[in-house]
């Protein structure tokens, strides 16, 4: 079964990527997690912070473009991972190992049944 892991963290901890040339961290805790989900992680990525977001609404046929996230919340989506797991218990176990689970939250959402 497919599960979407929405990686949520406090807005203050969601950073912009480093400028070109600026060194990134040597080895981040995410590497250990990526090792743990090797073979079952179908896709995933970190996302740019909400300050780079655009919201799109269509009302009465008119497209309205807004800045920022849909709602001002402290916790924002920092990234996502799509896992293929045997069952919900496996998805929960993998979410619990995610480094962000220690300070943020991982929302585990099953895919809509085919």
């Amino acid at each position, binding site marked *: *079964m497919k*599960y979407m892991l929405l990686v949520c963290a406090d807005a203050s901890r969601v950073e912009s990527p480093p400028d070109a040339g600026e060194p990134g961290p040597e080895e981040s805790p995410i590497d250990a997690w990526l090792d743990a989900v090797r073979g079952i992680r179908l896709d995933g990525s970190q996302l740019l912070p909400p300050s780079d977001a655009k919201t799109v609404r269509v009302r009465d046929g008119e497209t309205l473009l807004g800045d920022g996230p849909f709602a001002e919340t402290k916790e924002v989506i920092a990234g996502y991972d799509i896992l293929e*797991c045997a*069952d*919900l218990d496996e998805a929960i176990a993998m979410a619990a190992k995610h480094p962000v689970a220690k300070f943020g939250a991982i929302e585990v959402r*099953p895919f809509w*049944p085919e």
Partner: protein
Amino acid sequence: MNSEVEAAVADTFREEWGRIVAFLIRMTGDWDLAEECAQDAFAQALVRWPRDGVPRRPGAWLTTTARNRALDRLRRRANEAVKVQEAMVITRLAESGDADDDSGIGDDRLRLIFTCCHPALAMEARVALTLRTVAGLTTNEVARACLVTEPTMAKRLVRAKTKIRNAGIPYRVPPPQLLPERASGVLAVLYLLFNEGYAATAGTDLVRQNLCAEAIRLARLLVRLMPGEPEPEGLLALMLLHHSRRGARTDDAGELVTLEHQDRGRWDASEIAEGVGLLETALRRGRPGPYQVQAAIAACHATARTAADTDWVEIAALYGELARLVPSAVVELNRAVAVAMADGPAAGLVLVDRLEAEGALPGYHLLPATRADLLRRLHRDADAAAAYRQALGLASSDTERRYLERRLAEVSGPR
């Protein structure tokens, strides 16, 4: 209809329902099909057994009948649109023999219980599924037990089963690293069932009153299915010890009688003996847990010859142990009551005042009610009256309000 046969069907139902449903769910993965076919098998028994006699192994007869019924229905469905998966299920089911496993090892019912009580399901869904699928209550009975209408309950059950399928909740006994946590989730559901039944007073729906017996039956099953595990034994002991007082809890007018005023001659001695025996077995395993400690507290009350003989020092120590295992303000409040009985009201009041200073249990009437009782026993009548008034402002049950008003009159009246 032969009443002996009817009784045989009813007995077999209690014993076999969960086993048959659990087996069919494992084979087909289809909860509705499993329930419908189990129901059909029992309906068949009511027709066939009076005519042909009760089979030598009623459980095996019912399992085979239910399995054949499931095969028929799957084959008919498969004819309409053959799907690879359904064909696999049919083969597996057809080769399953009469699936008669008396060993208890690998019992399908344990899988069923753990799935029904999975933490991803809402508590009310866990309760409903356990009553319907494991215990075999009809949807109507589950609705009455949970105080909702039948359509509401039917919807709740459908949603829960859909969630199991769509969220991928596994049908299995959890692996060892998850077992302690999940097992305590199962025990919580059974204890909640028991407490719902225990809170149901005479005059309420019989199905609701019977929840205690149902919870005890399920706890017995769990003890049998998880041999050597002390917490299920502790929970069963706790239920039996509470249940032993059932007949003495209300007077002829239906008013609640507090523990100290109950007629101990009306307590069920055999339930007390069984509960105490089970608790001793559990404690010998050397792995204490919250249900064993609560059972030990209940045993202190159950074995005291009179209210005055109660070993409050031991009870206060046990509440201390319980607070260490599962810290909570309610446990702390109970400890305060026990300390007041063991060491005097002033010692208890210190603990209650500390809880109040921490702002614990806001809106919980038993905090000011306990404080009021301790102040009354210390003859601080004006303070006691204020606390009784505070408790009255929060209490919602009529019985409790009457009790508080009586006490308030005592401390405010002329002396």
